[in-house]
């Protein structure tokens, strides 16, 4: 403790010099922490999105074929048929007996409750949808097999939709008007998910979920696309395939790919798209690792520069205080005492820089989050790592100057002016 105090005292001899050296480490540490926090925040967001899609899932989505452009000019009244059909889902289930296969039909409709109106995505789906998308019911219940069999006019609505349509009342048991003439009873409200939007552009929190059978019966498979003003016949927008574990995902993806690509209709039209969240997740993780590696290199370089600064200053200090070293040696200081003294000074310099740098490094991401609305994530291990490295830098780069100081000839040192 005394050595640290005396070290501080010596550093105070050259306030500006010490401050500047400290600043070198300070900015190194701060930038490491801030960069890691921003990087972590950005990749965490991406990784979260992929995880939400379900790492054991393989998602097959219908996609409008590219040649539509030409045909749309030829005839606006013809019905454009593409995408997944019910039969595809059955074939998938046959090929992958262990999989949970969920069929999804999506279409846009206006939804009315009293004074409140909103346009949203109506999702016609099956019971397993809840499990496959990893969602939970907040209030009431989810769709049941019985609802499917009876093609019941019931729906479960997302958290946000519930708030929009029922700002003041409990939605469960009330009816909403979907489209022009179909009334659906709300039997449940889902928990808020806060997830990113689905490929259809709407978050799950805003959707209304109805039995797939009801959807087909009430609304059919043909929908007018408001943007192209054409009728499109799509039986299913999506088939979600959930495998029992992540180990099966790769196999399932390969099987599905082969099956759908060997299908004459789909392979000709190129009207489906297979998404494997696990693959995306792995790629994103690999990207993140790469990113972290680059950050680590940048961080090492900046701390290296700081370390060189410390070494420079310590060498100057040692030369300047040659006489002091001589005096201390004459008064009984051993070499190790001199090494200690200068190591402590270098350590104090870098630790101070590290400490202030940690403060700054935590504040900067906070500011970024606040003013730039970019998600950041300051992780305690990163902070510790940055601080630890800065302290180590001080010791490592202080070692040589301290060694030089200790190995001076005391007689020469005393004679030094």
């Amino acid at each position: 403790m005394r050595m640290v105090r005396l070290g501080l005292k010596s550093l105070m001899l050259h306030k500006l010099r010490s401050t500047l050296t400290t600043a070198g480490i300070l900015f190194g540490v701060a930038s490491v922490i801030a960069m890691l926090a921003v990087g972590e925040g950005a990749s965490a967001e991406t990784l979260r999105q992929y995880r939400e899609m379900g790492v054991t899932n393989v998602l097959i989505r219908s996609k409008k074929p590219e040649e539509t452009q030409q045909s749309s000019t030829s005839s606006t009244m013809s019905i454009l048929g593409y995408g997944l059909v019910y039969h595809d889902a059955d074939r998938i289930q046959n090929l992958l007996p262990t999989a949970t296969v969920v069929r999804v039909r999506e279409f846009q409709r206006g939804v009315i409750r009293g004074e409140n109106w909103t346009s949203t995505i109506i999702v016609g789906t099956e019971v397993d949808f809840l499990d496959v998308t990893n969602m939970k019911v907040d209030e009431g219940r989810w769709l049941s097999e019985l609802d499917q069999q009876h093609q019941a006019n019931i729906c479960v609505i997302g958290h946000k939709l519930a708030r929009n349509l029922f700002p003041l009342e409990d939605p469960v048991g009330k009816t909403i008007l979907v489209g022009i003439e179909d009334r659906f009873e709300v039997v449940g409200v889902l928990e808020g998910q806060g997830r990113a939007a689905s490929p259809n552009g709407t978050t799950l929190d805003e959707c209304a979920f109805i039995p797939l059978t009801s959807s087909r019966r009430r609304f059919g498979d043909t929908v007018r696309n408001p943007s192209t003003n054409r009728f499109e016949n799509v039986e299913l927008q999506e088939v979600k395939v959930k495998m029992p574990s992540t180990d099966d995902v790769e196999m399932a993806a390969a099987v599905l790919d082969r099956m759908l690509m060997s299908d004459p209709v789909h392979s000709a039209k190129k009207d489906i798209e297979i998404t494997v969240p696990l693959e995306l997740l792995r790629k994103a993780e690999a990207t993140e690792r790469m990113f972290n590696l680059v950050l680590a290199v940048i961080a090492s370089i900046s701390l290296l520069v700081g370390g060189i600064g410390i070494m420079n200053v310590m060498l100057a200090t040692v030369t300047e205080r040659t006489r002091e070293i001589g005096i201390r040696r004459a008064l009984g200081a051993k070499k190790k005492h001199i090494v200690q003294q200068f190591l402590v000074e270098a350590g104090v310099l870098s630790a101070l820089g590290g400490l202030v740098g940690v403060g700054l490094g935590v504040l900067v991401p906070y500011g970024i989050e606040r003013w730039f609305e970019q998600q950041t994530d300051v992780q305690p291990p990163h902070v510790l790592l940055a601080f630890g490295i800065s302290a180590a830098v001080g010791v490592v780069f202080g070692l040589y100057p301290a060694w030089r100081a200790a190995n001076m000839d005391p007689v020469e040192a005393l004679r030094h002016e």
Partner: protein
Amino acid sequence: MVARTAVVAAATEGNAVTAADRPIIAEFVDVHRHYVMGKNVVKALNGVSMQVRKGDYLAIMGRSGSGKSTMLNILGGLDRPTSGEYRVGGRDVSRLSDDDLSDVRGREIGFIFQSFNLIPQLTVLENLEVPLFYQGRVGPESRRKAEHLAGRVGLGGRLEHKPMELSGGQQQRVAIARALMNDPLFLLADEATGNLDSNTEKEILDLFDDLRPDGVTIVVVTHNPKVAERADHTLWLKDGQVEQLIDNRAAAGRGTT
């Protein structure tokens, strides 16, 4: 070449307390110190033998190049003889490791320098504590001792000052107090008054005299006859050898200087 030997004890015979009663605390036995400068060998010390007994006040004099500085460095444990023995408190320290020699400096020798050599960023108190710091003896006791010695050299109440706030004479008093902190076997003063005016020089030399009744042994290395004549004996060096040992009191009695 036969080394010339001077024994202080021999010259002090006939005093009330015979010199032989007092223990030898520092002793050169045929000390050589040779430096290799390129192809030449400089024999800075060429067979010096001498003894310092407890309570002695010895001046070492010589022209520049006589080996004075080399002798000082070896006496102070900063340098080692090329051959011969240097005994401190009866122990040969001429072959000790760097660490052990540091301990000898820290425990047995009290250095006083021409340019005071206080550490500028430390207060007087902290400067006084430096020798004890390296022996792990800093604490309330070292503080009491520092206060006592500061009072002894006439600097009570200045403990929290920085050296730069003191006059040259005061700084040298701090340095003397610092040299006494570790209860050394002897004080070793290197031109202790070289940077001071004649009044202050006298004050410092008076302070040396004041310390002697406490049993303090003093060795001064100087080229100034006025400083040397205050000592009991003067050892003259020439060409790395002892030229003569003069009993100053006997000389003064004969009316010569």
